[in-house]
């Protein structure tokens, strides 16, 4: 749209208008001589506008101003209607996003062995798995070779169904070959004619392979180097960057759907933090069933675990309709959803964000100390200076220890400790130290250092000196929520947060100030603790006199 320039006269007129509309009260009052007095109330129209923007996220429509024509204030029924509006639901989503930052964007779900890259020949694009190890497994040589732009049917197939790989030469490592391509309709494509040309090895549709007498799944991390395994039927075991983004977006919406249920007054607000209810859709189930297990230990660990809902039989990537599911311990409301546990990937980070959001407390950099504490050592709860925060933080972090760090998998099915490296390694599908190093840490016995145990990371300091660690770990996030509820701090902090969200300023907590709002906080938070209804809290705050005043 071409923006028309305005002549000087029009610009001048606009300037005068703009200055006039900003420098004086929003409605003139000739009887007051145009003076700007402190603490005037908004007119009913401007009050309606403010309420609409704060509660529904938009200004009122022209016809809606009739609701306050002739009135001296906005009727309570209008406030009720605004809180029942769908715009209020979206506003509460925005409030909780500002509070909990639930955006897992950027979490890497792709691994090299289950990724798809491509090369161009003329205008034709050919897809392949870019992992060097995988390419070496498929084609030999130094792992730099891809397929040739020839249909595989031309080269033929082996009796076992694997593609014939045409010898092409010898590189510095050894002989190598190239297979051809096949055409595959990928799972993420809705247009049935939009097939991709995929190197035949990478397009292998095998879902399992045999290792000795054991049959293993091709979409597991261990199958990454298996020659018989490619991307599976319709490439369902492989991810592209764009498909990864779809999973991030779905996790974010999953989080917000649960928020919706606890901000509309139909359920107690505090249950948002403890409920076993959640939502899922075909896309997330597809990821859980086919894609999550292939991530290595250096990636986000999102495999289904004990406490998660059962994996769907035949999930459809294109099914984005949401259904309600029920999870089990250690799940606890939004605090164990992937959008939260992947946004805050350490137990300390999860605990800190909860503490800020639902108790209103922040860790402050302490003054250094050099005496009465341990100057060295790994125990941060006793170390000089560190202990001033970590003596509080470490027990809080233990509440969140039941969810994998840098992941979303519940660890309820993981042993809390092993007595040997071999036993720890053996906990994986195939004995390997990667699993043990990812989830466990060697802890030496304080009395006999030769005695070592491999403990879950969250339980490293679960000992006689730190009895709260194991207790909090077992309680899970629901435990920290219960403490915050019982003490009332959850309700006080939420009242303060909502007050700030609606009044755009902090409550005046100065006990000596003439306009102190301490008593108001106690009054409103006590009411909130009694009814546990966020909508009622919102209505209570927007009906305060200070909400309607203008500067």
């Amino acid at each position, binding site marked *: 749209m071409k923006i028309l320039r305005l002549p000087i006269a029009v610009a001048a007129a*606009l300037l005068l208008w*703009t200055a006039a509309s*900003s420098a004086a009260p929003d409605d003139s009052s000739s009887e007051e001589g145009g*003076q700007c007095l402190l603490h005037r109330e908004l007119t009913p129209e401007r009050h309606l506008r403010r309420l609409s923007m704060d509660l529904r996220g938009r200004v009122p429509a022209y016809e809606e101003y009739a609701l306050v024509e002739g009135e001296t204030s906005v009727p309570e029924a209008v406030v009720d209607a605004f809180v029942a509006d769908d715009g209020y639901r979206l506003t509460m989503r925005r409030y909780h996003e500002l509070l909990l*930052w639930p955006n897992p964007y950027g979490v890497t779900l792709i691994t090299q062995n289950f990724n798809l890259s491509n090369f161009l020949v003329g205008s034709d694009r050919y897809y392949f798995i870019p992992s060097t190890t995988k390419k070496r497994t498929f084609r030999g040589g130094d792992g730099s070779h891809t397929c040739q732009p020839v249909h595989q049917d031309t080269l033929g197939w082996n009796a076992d169904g694997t593609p014939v790989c045409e010898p092409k030469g010898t590189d510095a490592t050894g002989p190598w070959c190239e297979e051809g391509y096949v055409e595959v309709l990928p799972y993420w494509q809705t247009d049935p004619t939009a097939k991709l040309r995929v190197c035949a090895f990478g397009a292998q549709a095998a879902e399992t392979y045999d290792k000795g007498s054991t049959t293993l799944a091709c979409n597991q991390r261990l199958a990454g180097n298996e020659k018989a395994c490619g991307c599976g039927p319709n490439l369902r075991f492989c991810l592209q960057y764009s498909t990864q983004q779809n999973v991030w977006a779905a996790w974010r919406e999953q989080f917000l759907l649960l928020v919706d249920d606890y901000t509309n007054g139909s359920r107690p607000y505090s249950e948002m933090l403890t409920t076993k209810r959640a939502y899922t859709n075909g896309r997330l189930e597809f990821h859980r069933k086919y894609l999550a297990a292939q991530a290595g230990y250096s990636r986000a660990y999102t495999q289904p675990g004990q406490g998660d809902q059962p994996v769907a039989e035949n999930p459809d990537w294109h099914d984005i309709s949401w259904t309600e599911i029920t999870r089990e311990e250690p799940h606890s409301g939004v605090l164990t959803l992937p959008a939260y546990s992947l946004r805050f990937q350490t137990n300390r980070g999860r605990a800190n964000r909860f503490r800020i959001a639902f108790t209103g407390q922040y860790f402050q950099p302490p003054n250094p100390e050099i005496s009465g504490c341990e100057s060295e050592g790994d125990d941060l709860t006793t170390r000089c200076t560190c202990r001033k925060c970590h003596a509080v933080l470490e027990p809080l972090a233990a509440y969140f220890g039941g969810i994998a760090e840098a992941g979303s998998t519940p660890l309820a099915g993981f042993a809390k400790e092993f007595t040997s490296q071999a036993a720890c390694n053996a906990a994986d599908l195939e004995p390997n130290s990667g699993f043990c190093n990812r989830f466990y840490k060697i802890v030496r016995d304080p009395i006999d250092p030769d005695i070592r145990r491999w403990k879950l990371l969250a339980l490293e300091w679960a000992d006689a000196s730190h009895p709260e660690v194991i207790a909090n770990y077992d309680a899970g996030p629901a435990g920290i929520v219960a403490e915050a509820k019982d003490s009332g701090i959850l309700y006080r902090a939420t009242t303060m947060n909502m007050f700030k969200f609606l009044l755009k300023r902090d409550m005046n907590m100065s006990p000596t100030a003439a306009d102190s709002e301490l008593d108001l906080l106690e009054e409103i938070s006590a009411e909130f603790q009694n009814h546990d209804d966020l909508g009622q809290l919102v209505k209570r705050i927007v009906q305060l006199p200070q909400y309607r005043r203008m500067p």
Partner: protein
Amino acid sequence: MRAVIATTLLAGLSVLAACATETTSAPSSPPSDSQVKADRENVGDIGDVSTQTALSATRAVQRMPIAVLEASIPVVAGSDIKGPSITWKEGNNEALADNIYGAVLGRPDFITVTEENSAPSSLYVKFMRDMARNVCSQISTSDHQRSSYSETTLWRFAPIDGSVTPEQINENLRYLTLRFLGMRLTTDDPYIEKLRAVFEAGRETSNQGWAGLHGDAEGWRTVCIGLLESPAFHID
């Protein structure tokens, strides 16, 4: 142009200190030395500075969040002649999408930006000028194609065929300030008077061959721009 932006910014910021330039019952001049005794007791009658009782601080003043702005533009702008709501466009894209201006104007992504800075910065003011022109041009274009004045957004109570009366102009101005700003004003309100000057200036551009549209329509489009640029629209 820079002067206009700077002045508009200052005008916007001035709402944050709305009373700063207004007279209260402050003394007209400070007490002279002869009125103050050596022991600092002030014997001069300088009047009571404030006649207000101590009340809790009011709600702070900020510009509306980007999400609210995005939802509010179609409410005041209405729909175009084909049916969809009028929004701020950048080419064929929504201008407030994150990949256009939404993130630039401060919409948080909760990764790198976790809160929205709601100060009316000069960057925001500049983009709102662009928004006002884009949206008001769309409204005007659609209104020209409507068959009934009652269906229009900008000149619902004022014909644009050259027969408009001063009373109709005032009524339409009152309608527009209520629609865009939520201000129900009387005909003799100083704001209506100033807004009428905006209308007249815009109407005059057609006589000067600037816009090529009918004068009255151009006047209303100019009023629309003024309203969408006004701090009263953006301040919540």
